[in-house]
């Protein structure tokens, strides 16, 4: 596709429910990033893939958060046993390289945990 595509755009989850957020990066982009943006804040890094390899997961807030990119293209961010503090916009970005280049962002998935 022309840009980074994320689905769903909006997700409401009951506390304790598991959710899966999908990201389709720009075709051919080897690098893929997940960010979390809380209300009124800037995006905060969660994790980074180069092709299928997860090279950095230092930003994942707990072991309830898990990301994968098994074939080096589509990625899924999974949150288990969601809690209210997980409510945020989850942004996916991709870039042609990981270093000193701009990343292109999707529209995000707004997760609300009730």
């Amino acid at each position, binding site marked *: 596709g022309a840009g980074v595509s994320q689905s769903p755009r909006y997700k409401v989850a009951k506390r304790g429910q598991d959710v899966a957020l999908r990201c389709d990066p720009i075709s051919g982009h080897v690098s893929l990033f997940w960010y979390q943006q809380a209300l009124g804040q*800037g995006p905060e890094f969660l994790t980074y893939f180069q092709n299928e390899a997860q090279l*950095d997961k230092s930003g994942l807030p707990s072991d309830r958060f898990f990301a994968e990119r098994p074939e080096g293209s589509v990625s899924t961010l999974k949150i288990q046993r969601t809690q209210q503090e997980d409510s945020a916009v989850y942004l996916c970005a991709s870039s042609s390289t990981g*270093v*000193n280049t*701009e990343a*292109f*962002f999707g529209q995000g998935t707004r997760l609300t945990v009730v």
Partner: protein
Amino acid sequence: DQQVKQNSPSLSVQEGRISILNCDYTNSMFDYFLWYKKYPAEGPTFLISISSIKDKNEDGRFTVFLNKSAKHLSLHIVPSQPGDSAVYFCAVNTGTASKLTFGTGTRLQVTL
């Protein structure tokens, strides 16, 4: 501990005038700096970047200035247009790291 700070949460500028958005950072190891623009319900859009080997980069109405000694970055938009109204984030990246560290954003409103 905020490594990237945008101390002005909002800015209002008249159409045609210059908008100046500021950003301060703490880590002298940062060597690549970017500005992103974000409209409501959309993801951030890349605007302009600068490497630490430069002190200025210009692209049309947008110019980014880097003052390494002061660890300060600014974005100038001239002339400002109503379509520039958005939230602007500065972001930094080290040469060896993959992740961007963002500021908290400045909401720019360009009035008629």
